[in-house]
């Protein structure tokens, strides 16, 4: 029964992420509009965009292959799997044992490789340009991301996200200086991997400056809807990983869900345990509001860099992550 309950919790969490991701995107866009003194389209706009796109006919290039048509679904599948692994509301998910942080990076890499291949499929100049740039940014960002995860896993002696969250959440406000450096590096990688300013402008119309958008130029209708949705899920997951590593308080731990749901345990479990699950949801929403506003602020005050400044940016992220790891060795062990 406990296992079934945990699987239900898992599915609920995945559905929450799938449902909330466009809302997060809408909130970020709305904040950005307010910061630029515009009235904005409303936080429900991404839902309307998805609705519109799903209702359209798909137009495909004549030489688009099976790979091109299958990629949006594969992308969505990878992001959903990742959504089942990252602890957003609760940290004792049964699926989380199927993949640790390294496998999580692998899932994102799989999605990215498929998107890059699909971009090269139609054979236009912009598609291949986007693929090349995306892989360039990816191969520089991935080591930095893995070094951040290594630092966190050296502290918690594990690469399983569940264990990392449990260790860091129970640390009672102990300050880890290595995590400060890792947080800075992670923020830079988040901006790079999710195609935000200063690496890539998600709202640009100039094709020669596109990275992520250039890869999805040929997609339309339901395919484009799935890809946009998958991108917003990826952004939400990255922010959730950031929370799990650096702001883990408020995530429900092991056993909290059963305490919440099983009525006959209410007498035995403490109030803190019973209410951990709804409290975790509230915390999540608060964190997402703050993170979305922060992201919008960061994007508004930064300018987009030209493409060959991106390696310097990501090299800095890598350096900060390695510094974090060395500080862990020097100060924390």
């Amino acid at each position: 029964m406990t296992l079934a309950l945990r699987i239900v919790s898992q599915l609920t969490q995945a559905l929450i992420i799938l449902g909330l991701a466009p809302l997060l995107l809408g909130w970020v866009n709305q904040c950005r509009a307010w910061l630029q003194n515009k009235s904005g389209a409303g936080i429900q706009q991404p839902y309307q965009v998805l609705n519109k796109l799903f209702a359209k006919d798909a137009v495909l290039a004549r030489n688009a292959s099976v790979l091109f048509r299958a990629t949006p679904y594969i992308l969505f599948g990878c992001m959903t799997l990742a959504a089942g692994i990252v602890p957003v509301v609760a940290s004792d998910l049964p699926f989380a044992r199927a993949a640790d942080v390294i496998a999580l990076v692998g899932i994102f890499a799989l999605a990215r490789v498929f998107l890059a291949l699909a971009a090269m499929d139609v054979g236009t100049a912009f598609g291949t340009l986007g693929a090349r740039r995306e892989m360039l940014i990816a191969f520089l960002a991935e080591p930095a991301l893995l070094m951040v995860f290594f630092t966190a896993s050296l502290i918690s002696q594990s690469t399983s996200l569940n264990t990392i969250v449990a260790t860091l959440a129970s640390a009672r406000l102990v300050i880890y200086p290595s995590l400060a450096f890792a947080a800075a590096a992670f923020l830079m990688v988040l901006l790079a991997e999710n195609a935000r300013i200063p690496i890539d402008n998600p709202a640009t119309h100039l094709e020669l400056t596109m990275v992520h958008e250039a890869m999805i130029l040929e997609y339309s209708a339901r395919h484009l809807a799935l890809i946009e949705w998958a991108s917003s899920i990826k952004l939400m997951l990255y922010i959730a990983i950031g929370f799990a590593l650096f702001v883990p308080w408020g995530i429900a731990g092991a056993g909290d869900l059963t305490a919440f749901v099983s009525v006959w345990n209410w007498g035995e479990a403490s109030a803190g345990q019973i209410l951990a699950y709804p409290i975790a949801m509230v915390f999540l929403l608060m964190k997402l509001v703050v993170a979305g506003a922060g992201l919008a602020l960061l994007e508004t005050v930064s300018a987009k860099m030209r493409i060959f400044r991106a390696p310097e940016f990501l090299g800095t992220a890598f350096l900060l992550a390695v510094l974090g790891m060395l500080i862990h060795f020097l100060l924390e062990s």
Partner: protein
Amino acid sequence: MVNTASPNTTSSIHAGRGLKETIERVASEPGAGARRGRGGRSYPRPNRLVHRGVWKAGTLPDNNRGRMSRTFRNPTYESDETLQQRLCSTWTRVSQRSHAVQCAHQSNSHARIQVTGSFDLLPVDVAFAVSCVWLVLGLVGFALRNRPQVVTSLIFPLTAAASLILSIAMLVGLGAAPTVAILPLGLPDLPFHLRVDALSAFFLFLLGITTFGVSLFSAGYFRGETGERLGLLTLQYHVFIAAMTLVLVADDALSFMVAWECMALSSYFLVTTDHWLLQARSAGFIYLLIAHLGALCLLFCFGAMQAGQGDYTFAAMRAARLDTTWSTAAFLLALLGFGAKAGLLPLHVWLPEAHPAAPSPVSALMSAVMLKTAIYGLLRITFNLLDMQLWWWGAVALTVGLLTALFGVLFAAVQTDIKRLLAYSSIENIGIIIVAFGLTILFRAFNMELLAALSLTAMLYHVLNHSVFKALLFLATGSVLHATGSRSFGMLGGLIHRMPRVAGLCLVGALAASGLPPFNAFVSEWLLLQSFLLTPGLPHSYLNMLVPVAAAALVLAGSLAAYVMVKFYGVIFLGRPRDAKLAAAQEASRWEHAGLGWLAALCVLLGLIPLTVIDAIDYVTVSLIGEKLGPVASKSGWLLLTPLSPARASYSPVIFLLVTVLVTVGSYLLVHRYFRRGTRRADAWDCGYPLQTPRMQDTAEGFGQPISQIFEPAFEIERTLPDPADLHPVYRKRQADRFWRALYLPVARLVEALSDLVGRSQHGRIQWYLFYSFATLLILLAFVR
């Protein structure tokens, strides 16, 4: 230097010259000149196996078989029990600090395959028999060279069947005690010793499964060849695989070196199959040169290991106790010698030349199996023949491996020839394997047995994975080459429409090579990263800080591998055809599909059943370092791979694949159920630009441009820029290996200078020659008593 071209233009725009010829010329050797030389003769068939085997202590050898006519040497038989005792005592001594002291073989029985009569087949017999069968098939194929349909439809499938039998026998024989045999060949006091233990059985299994796929593919690939060329190819191919088998079972220095040389020579002739091309000849020359440099180092290594006893059998080397100096000398010579064959820096320069020059199935075999024989040699010498491992050996191996991996992948990213790219990718993966090897030595030297087992498991797993996916990729390029006639990226494109099955199978290989889950290479790289995460536990104060940073370099190499594979797959199979004659490209034959399909299935399977593979690898790790990973890794059931502990890390490829496939298919069905809308085809959007030609898509040079810009110091870049007054403007950018000019050219010049100096004494005057003889005689009389 002003670079007037934008990053997206192709780097070679020629007027009036073919791109292929230019690329061949550009890629040709700057170094030592090419020499004509072919003197290959078919290798003499070995005598029939007379006696072999291990008998249980207390019984007489069962040797009255009637067909024997020679004597054999009793004392060199090892009884089963004494062998067990000696091995047991070795492991006990070595693994004293580990919490699980156990002898390797759990069962007392050998792997016996009972055939009718009193005839028992031991693994060593199977290995030797299969190599003999291959030699016979090669000779038959050469004899029947004027009937190509017989050769391709009968000989190569038989080769494949024999390799399948070998791999099954070796899989069964992994858990058995080591079996030895002695052949009446070789020197009077050093006959050929053969031995199959867990390490040999593992590598023979690898050889078997890879050769199966490659031979099936060759049955279709060599269909267009006839006559002399087909006969020689068949003969050399079979000598090559037989020689590799004998390398893996050799148990003394003589048979090892004989088999090693046979392997080098047969592959040399295979590399120079197209000997009318300058590139093939120079590739063969540099290949043979470096192979012999390596063989020389190996000879010295064996000399160092025989410890002055004069006994060159491996059994004697195992029993010998060398001091630190000699052990170090042996290790460094082995690293140099086997590194030359494996393609480690700086002796890697032959790989990118030889692999493209050889026919594609041979390139696949060279990359997938021959490089692994060098890895086998390193493991054999370091963990089996030497009895100590120092920590700084591990540091040296780690450094060399990292540099090799980074170098390989950087150069792979800028290549314009499909097979050169795969050759550099092989260099990268060999670097990763040597990194794992270095980690194993490090852990072992500090007596951390379980962690050493983890990194050794990662190393052996990656050896297996790399064989399978690299063979698959090379064979796919073979199909592409046959279908299109071109090896250059600039003449390919859009082949997914013309060759969909080859494209699909090659996609599996490309995804596996990128190290993506749920394919096989991800598991071995994951295990390697997990073992890197444990290096902070090393007792040495600087190592525990620096080695984790090395993990960052490894991750960089891994992510660049994905870049390289996107370039490889995207430029060949996706997009639009860059050449008009690609419209005539045909799908490959069914034999080729069979070979490719087998290897692709292995790529997926090895990624989905990591625990089973680790159980098999455990036999090898126990025999080498006395510890195994299996019980710890499978502690949480058959689904989860948990090296060390479930709280530490876990990975379940089956769940991974299942969930991804379920959600993908589910989303497809849901979308089509609720949003059933039409699909129509139109021209590509391309942001409204109406004029799109295939030349506007990215090229291999374009894909490599960011890498060569960011990592410019790693390359030697030569640019030819057009002049405003040129009638036929040419822009060329050549990225060459720095080692040619920095290392090989000075060495070649030095050798030439020395030779000139010595050559001054050869001036043809008979009086001086007589004086030389007279002076030598005087010196000998004076100084030699």
